Each structure stands twice: as structure tokens, then as C-alpha cells.
């Protein structure tokens, strides 16, 4: 079945479509930014056009009729924008953004197994109706293409231009820019690099309107291109920028002297590029008179890196891989690690045998090499799974734009560390929590403009998101310069919900008060006066993050703002675990939730309100005995000395009391299977080598059960 072209195409479709939709959305953001800043970016509109053009064809090919139709009309709209028949207004951008979101939703539905795009029928019907309106308005406001002015174009040049390129050429003439031909010859093997270098040099100076191939040299090992460039600056500036590249610059000849915008009727283009009778006086570039025969030069500073044989290779050096295949590879590596542990066991036995000491040494050496390579392999697979957080941040920019409009607040969204990488799965799972956090910042953190002005703050509020890697963790900070958390309201809300009584409330530290925000239903909102149902509570954010082994902390300064800090492991595929023993059994505790371990004497344990606690640097740490959590029967008395493993879940800390710390080990968590799945406190099982299977503790549940958080039992 999967050999049918259409099935293969469907498999290919989704990742490519998602990539295109992401590009499309990114371009829209940039377009909107440029529009607001008053910079026109014709090339970017064209890129957006091209991306949706491809999407249309893709959707049509796999039978997604709605997506195809919608992208078709979006393409029409963008076509009109790039041809300047429609102005790119805020309303047009909004329509495009909506389409981008709808595309994303359809792609997500398909990704989750929907076989058609029918689920978005209403939304796409509604959007289409408004699109038709915009397109109809556009048709009435058609404006004429500007004429060629005094430029003398070769008919054969005009014939190879696409409609868009011809339009850009005319627009450049209209704007009174100078038009130039940059002739360059590239070696076949290095044209990609060479062309890129040339484009980079030209970009700041003007617009590359088109790339025309020429066949003047006849050398089969070279590709010659004429780049037609429109530039506002003097020719000397372009000449200087291209110095050293071995390219030839010529001004496109003109019939008159005028350099201003020309509205004269287009002259019949003469054949070939000829010197017009009255050429403008030569500009200060004696090195390249405009009409010398074209000297062909290979770009000099580019090394030939590949042999010709490679010319039938695909230019693309990337493959798309289903993440499940990587999971499988990761599992295999995990199993290989177990096999290595097994070898270590055999080795330990061999070492005891004196007669085989030599063999043991050799095996020891080989086992170490194997171990190192396995570590490298694991690291390499993890690296493949990594994607930059920028993917989520881009989506967030769109959300910020939308929410700030809805809320009538002007928001400056500052992103840093977008290049920080995280496991693909985590990145996906993070989008929603981050979105809620940012929504909260804008809705509840940032004050209305007039309030900010009164407080002497800049009218535009700032929401900043910053990511950085720290060892095996990624830290993401979401910060606003708003009003800060209202301690009094938080406490009142927590008391009303029954989490606290008035007396206990008075004893809370500031940090403990801020952390109340993570309890279900607790909020700084005054329920009656504010919109409800729009935001999602921070408790949901916290729960989602703890599923990802993430920890969240909050800091706030009244009047200055609030900062939320997320700490996440960079991957969940293979985890490091602390192997422990309690009441004669062995367990693994995921190391990413372990903060520290301490040795305690039985006398260190106090009881407060029927709960066992120990003092940790002046703070009270609730403890839970692993044997109590699982109702294990202990043979004999409790040891006098025990270990406490301090684990953290989001902002909570709990000490797990155990008998023995055995060591650290990489583990692959496996599900226990249907019958045992969902036992509270157990995340799964893992093999430690030597056929030994142990249970992996689910720290999140243990902490919640101990503290009663999430279940509403924390009220004293």
C-alpha cells in the first residue's frame, strides 16, 4: 500500500506543509513589522506568495480541497499585493494571519489522523467570505503599471521575466532608481556559495530583481548569470561593494538624461542592448566603462570543494525523519547500554580468575571503548532530536500581537536565546504553557496605557522571553514590566478557596505567597470585574510543565513586574537516574527532579501537624518515607541513619527518605503495560542490567500526594 504514490505523497506532505506554514507565518510577522516601521519589502511579499503557492499545489495533490481553495485565494491576495494592486494594510495582514492559523490547525488535524480538512469547514468558509470581500475591493482599485521611463531594455530580456519581476522592474523605474546588470560567471561546483556571496553584497544596496542566465561563454563548466539590480545609490557605491568578486557591473542604458521618475509612454525596445544616442555622462567608475565587452571571470575567492561527479547529487543535504524512529533508535541505544552493563558483570567475574587475567584486561579495554562509543552515539541521537526554541518563539510573537490587540495594550515583545535547542517533543509541548504564561503577562501584568503613563513607565509594556542552556537543562524566563503580583489579592483568593486560614496566611514568606498562584482557582483577578474563561490558570501551566519534568518559579516586584522561570531537561528520551534502596527494594529516581541528598539521624525528624518534616538550612522540608508511600513492610527496624533525597516539582520540595544511595545511571523508562499502568507514584520500569528490573518513581505524584497540592487538601 505504502508504495502507492499518493500514500507516499501524504507521508511527505505533512512535514513539508508544516515547514511551509511556519515560513509563511514567520514572513507575515516580519511583513507586519516592516509595514508598521514603514519599510516596504517587496521581496518578502513575494516569498510569502511563493510559500502559499507551493502549499496550494501540495494541498491539491493530497486532496485537501478546503486548504487548497483557501491557499489559492490567499495566493491571489498576495499576488495582488506583490504587484501593488492591493496595499498591504493592517486588515490585509490580519486576514493573512488568520489564514496562517487556519493552515496550522488543518495541518495539526491531519497530523492527528484526520483524513480530510472538513473539520475546519466553518472557519475556512468564514475567512473565505472576508477574503473575497478584500479581493473584490482590490479589483476596483487597480492602478496602471508604470512605464519604462528612459530605460532601454532588450526585448529578449523582457520576455524571460515573470509577471512579478516585470512589475518590480517597472516599480524600480518609477522610484527613479538606477538599474544595473551585474555579470558573473560561476563554476558549476561552487555556484551556490558564489551566488549567495554576491547576493549578500548586493542586498544592502538595493533590490536584485532577477537572475538571468546567459550562454555567452560556452564553457560547460560554468554558469553565467546577469543579475538585474535596482539601486538608489550611485554606481560607484555598487562598484565598491562588488570589488574583488571578479564580476562586471554595467548600468542599464537609458535614452535620456533624466533620473527622476518617468511617466513617458514606453519606447519600443530596440534590439539588443545598444548605446543610446545620449548616454548620461560616465559616473566615477573608470575601471568599468559601461560598454566594454563582458569579461568573464570566475569568482576568485571561492574554493572548488567538490568534483564534477557530484553534479547529479541532490542539492538538499537534509532528510526529514519521523520522531518515532528516533525514539526507537534511542531505545536501542538504551538496550545496548544494558548489554554493556552485562558485559561488565562478566568482566567482574573474569577478573577474579587469575588464569584469565590477560583476557580480563583485554575485555576491560574493549568494554571501555564500547562504552565510550555508546555515549557518543547517545549524544548524537539526542542532538538530532534538538530543534531551536525559536520555532515556538515565532508562534508566540503572533500570539502576542493578537492578544495585545484584543487587550488594547501596546506590547514590545523581546526575544532572546531563540537559538537554544531543546528536544523536539518538549518544544512542541511547551508552546501551550508558554502561550498561557504570556497571555497572563499581557492580560494581568501589563497595565493599561493610561495607568502606565501615570506611573511614569513607557506606554508600551515589555514582555521578554529569554532562553539559555545550563548543562543538561534549559532555562526559559518570561518577564514583564507590569504591575507585579498583588500579594494581598493572592492571599485573599487562597483563603477564599480554602487553601489557607487567616492565621497561616500571616506566616507565609513573600516567596510562598507568590507560589500560591500555582494553586487551582487562585488568582489575582477580582472575579466579578474581569473577563473569565479566557486565560488559563497557572495551575494548568504548572501541571503541564511537571509532565515534562519542568520546574517553575515565580518572582515579582510590586510595580516593577513579574518573572516566571522554567527549568526543563533538554530531553526526556534517556534520563539519568539516581538508583536507591528502601526497605530492601531498589528504585530509580529521575535525576532531573533531584535537587540534593542529605544524611539524617532518626532524631532529626520532627512532626508538625501530623506530618514528618526535617529542617533544611532553616526551612521546613516535608518528608515521605518510600516504604510508607508504597505500603511496603520493612523487615526489621528502621536504620538509625537514613538518606533524604530532596526532590523538586515545580516550586514544591519534598524529601524522600531512603536507606541507601546506590549510584547514578542512564535509564530508558519503559511503560509497565496496560495492567500496571497508572499506579500512583510509579512512572514506569527500567532495566539496570543483569536482568534486574526496577521501578522508576514518579516524583510528581509523590510530591503531590505528600503535600496534597493539586488535590485541594493543603488546607490545614
Amino acid at each position, binding site marked *: 500500500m505504502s508504495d502507492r504514490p499518493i500514500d507516499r*505523497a501524504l507521508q511527505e506532505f505533512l512535514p513539508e506543509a508544516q515547514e511551509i506554514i511556519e515560513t509563511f507565518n514567520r514572513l507575515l510577522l516580519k511583513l507586519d513589522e516592516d509595514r508598521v516601521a514603514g519599510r516596504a519589502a517587496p521581496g518578502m511579499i513575494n516569498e510569502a506568495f*511563493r510559500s502559499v503557492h507551493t502549499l496550494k499545489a*501540495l494541498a491539491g495533490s493530497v486532496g485537501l480541497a478546503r486548504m487548497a481553495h483557501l491557499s489559492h485565494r490567499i495566493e491571489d491576495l498576495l499576488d495582488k499585493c506583490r504587484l501593488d494592486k492591493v496595499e498591504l494594510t493592517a486588515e490585509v495582514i490580519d486576514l493573512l494571519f488568520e489564514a496562517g492559523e487556519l493552515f496550522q490547525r488543518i495541518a495539526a488535524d491531519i497530523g492527528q489522523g484526520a483524513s480530510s480538512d472538513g473539520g475546519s469547514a466553518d472557519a475556512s468558509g468564514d475567512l473565505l467570505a472576508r477574503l473575497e470581500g478584500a479581493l473584490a475591493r482590490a479589483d476596483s482599485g487597480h492602478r496602471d503599471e508604470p512605464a519604462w521611463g528612459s530605460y532601454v531594455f532588450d526585448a529578449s530580456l523582457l520576455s524571460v521575466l*515573470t509577471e512579478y519581476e516585470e512589475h518590480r522592474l517597472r516599480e524600480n523605474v518609477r522610484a527613479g532608481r538606477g538599474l544595473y546588470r551585474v555579470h558573473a560567471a560561476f563554476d558549476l561546483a561552487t555556484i*551556490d556559495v558564489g551566488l549567495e556571496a554576491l547576493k549578500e553584497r548586493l542586498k544592502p544596496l538595493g533590490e536584485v530583481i532577477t537572475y538571468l542566465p546567459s550562454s555567452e561563454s*560556452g564553457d*560547460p563548466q560554468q554558469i553565467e548569470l546577469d543579475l538585474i539590480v535596482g539601486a538608489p545609490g550611485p554606481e560607484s557605491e555598487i562598484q565598491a561593494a562588488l570589488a574583488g568578486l571578479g564580476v562586471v557591473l554595467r548600468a542599464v542604458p537609458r535614452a535620456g538624461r533624466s533620473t527622476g521618475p518617468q511617466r513617458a509612454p514606453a519606447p519600443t525596445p530596440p534590439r539588443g542592448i545598444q548605446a543610446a544616442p545620449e548616454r548620461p555622462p560616465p559616473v566615477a567608475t573608470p575601471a568599468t566603462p559601461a560598454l566594454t565587452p563582458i569579461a568573464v571571470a570566475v569568482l576568485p575567492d571561492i574554493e572548488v570543494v567538490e568534483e564534477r561527479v557530484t553534479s*547529479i547529487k541532490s542539492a538538499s543535504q537534509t532528510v526529514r525523519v519521523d520522531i518515532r524512529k528516533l525514539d526507537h533508535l534511542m531505545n536501542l541505544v538504551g538496550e545496548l547500554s544494558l548489554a554493556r552493563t552485562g558485559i561488565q558483570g562478566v568482566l567482574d567475574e573474569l577478573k577474579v580468575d587469575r588464569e584469565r587475567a590477560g583476557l580480563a584486561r583485554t575485555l576491560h579495554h574493549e568494554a571501555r571503548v564500547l562504552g565510550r562509543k555508546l555515549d557518543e552515539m547517545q549524544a548524537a541521537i539526542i542532538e538530532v532530536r534538538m530543534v531551536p526554541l525559536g520555532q515556538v518563539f515565532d508562534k508566540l510573537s503572533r500570539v502576542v500581537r493578537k492578544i495585545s490587540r484584543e487587550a488594547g495594550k501596546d506590547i514590545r515583545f523581546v526575544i532572546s536565546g531563540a537559538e537554544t535547542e531543546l528536544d523536539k517533543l518538549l518544544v512542541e509541548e511547551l508552546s501551550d504553557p508558554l502561550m498561557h504564561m504570556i497571555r497572563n503577562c499581557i492580560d494581568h501584568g501589563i497595565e493599561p496605557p493610561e495607568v502606565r503613563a501615570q506611573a511614569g513607565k513607557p506606554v508600551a509594556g515589555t514582555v521578554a522571553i529569554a532562553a539559555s542552556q545550563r548543562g543538561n537543562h534549559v532555562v526559559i524566563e518570561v518577564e514583564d514590566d507590569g504591575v507585579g503580583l498583588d500579594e494581598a489579592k493572592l492571599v485573599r483568593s487562597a483563603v477564599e478557596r480554602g487553601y489557607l486560614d487567616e492565621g497561616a496566611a500571616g506566616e507565609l514568606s513573600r516567596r510562598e505567597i507568590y507560589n500560591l498562584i500555582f494553586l487551582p482557582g487562585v488568582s489575582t483577578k477580582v472575579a466579578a470585574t474581569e473577563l473569565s474563561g479566557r486565560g488559563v490558570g497557572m495551575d494548568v501551566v504548572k501541571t503541564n510543565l511537571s509532565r515534562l519534568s519542568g520546574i517553575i518559579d515565580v518572582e515579582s516586584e510590586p510595580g516593577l513586574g513579574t518573572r516566571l522561570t522554567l527549568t526543563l531537561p533538554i530531553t526526556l528520551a534517556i534520563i539519568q537516574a539516581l538508583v536507591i534502596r528502601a526497605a530492601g527494594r531498589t528504585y530509580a529516581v529521575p535525576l532531573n527532579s533531584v535537587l540534593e541528598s542529605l544524611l539524617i539521624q532518626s532524631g532529626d525528624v520532627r512532626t508538625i501537624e501530623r506530618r514528618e518534616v526535617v529542617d533544611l538550612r532553616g526551612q521546613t522540608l516535608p518528608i515521605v518515607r518510600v516504604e510508607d508511600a508504597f505500603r511496603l513492610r520493612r523487615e526489621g527496624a528502621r536504620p538509625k541513619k537514613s538518606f533524604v533525597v530532596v526532590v523538586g516539582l515545580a516550586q514544591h520540595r519534598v524529601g524522600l527518605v531512603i536507606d541507601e544511595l546506590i549510584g547514578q545511571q542512564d535509564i530508558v523508562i519503559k511503560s509497565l503495560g496496560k495492567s500496571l499502568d497508572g499506579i500512583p507514584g510509579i512512572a514506569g520500569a527500567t532495566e539496570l542490567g543483569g536482568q534486574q528490573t526496577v521501578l522508576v518513581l514518579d516524583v510528581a505524584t509523590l510530591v503531590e500526594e505528600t503535600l496534597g497540592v493539586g488535590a485541594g487538601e493543603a488546607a490545614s
Partner: protein
Amino acid sequence: MAWTALVVEDSPTMRQLIVFALARIKGLSVIEADDGVDALKKLAGTKVDILITDINMPIMDGLKLTKRVRSDEALKRIPIVIITTEGADEDRQRALALGANAYITKPIQAPQVLSKVKELLKIA
């Protein structure tokens, strides 16, 4: 007989659809390129019997590629099939004026691809 087709298209999915359609022609092998410049590279290294190209591609589009092929002594007899989309009439006209022999429209339909290619390669 053995032929080689060069498929020039920047979308890997669309390219794959065309390649799959072409796989039904016995004796036809297919090479692929992402855009016009890449196509010129491939054309320099391989003898190609038919060129199937998209119009709208980054850097060098199908129009320029057609023009370049038509003005090259060694390549100018290669039949060219243009891939267009509904609505892109202007660019399709330009491609045909530059010497493209035929066009197919997206979404790609295998029978349409096959009939044009067979016709141009004179395969019964």
C-alpha cells in the same frame, strides 16, 4: 530505449509525485533538481532527454531555465514541459513563448504527466 528525465521543482513532495508518475515509463530514469541553477548543474553533467520544470522557484525560475536551454547549442533540442498552476496564465504564456513544448497543471495527475512525456519522447 533508455531516456533520462530531469524534474525541476522546489517542493520535494511535488517532485516525488512527478517522479512516481514517471516511474511507470519503462526505460526512463529520472534525476531531480531544486531550482533552475541546480538544473543547469545537472544538465552539464548528464545527458537529459526531457526536462520537466516548475515555473515558480527560488533564484532561477522555469522561464529563465527554458530560455537558457533554448539558447544553448548542446541543449536546445531537449523537449520542455512546464508545470504551472491554475491562474498563472501570464507566466504560462511567457514560458510557451520562450519555447516550452507543453505544460501540465498542478495538482499533478499521473495520466497527464505520462501522456505529455510519452508524446514528447515519441513513446507509443
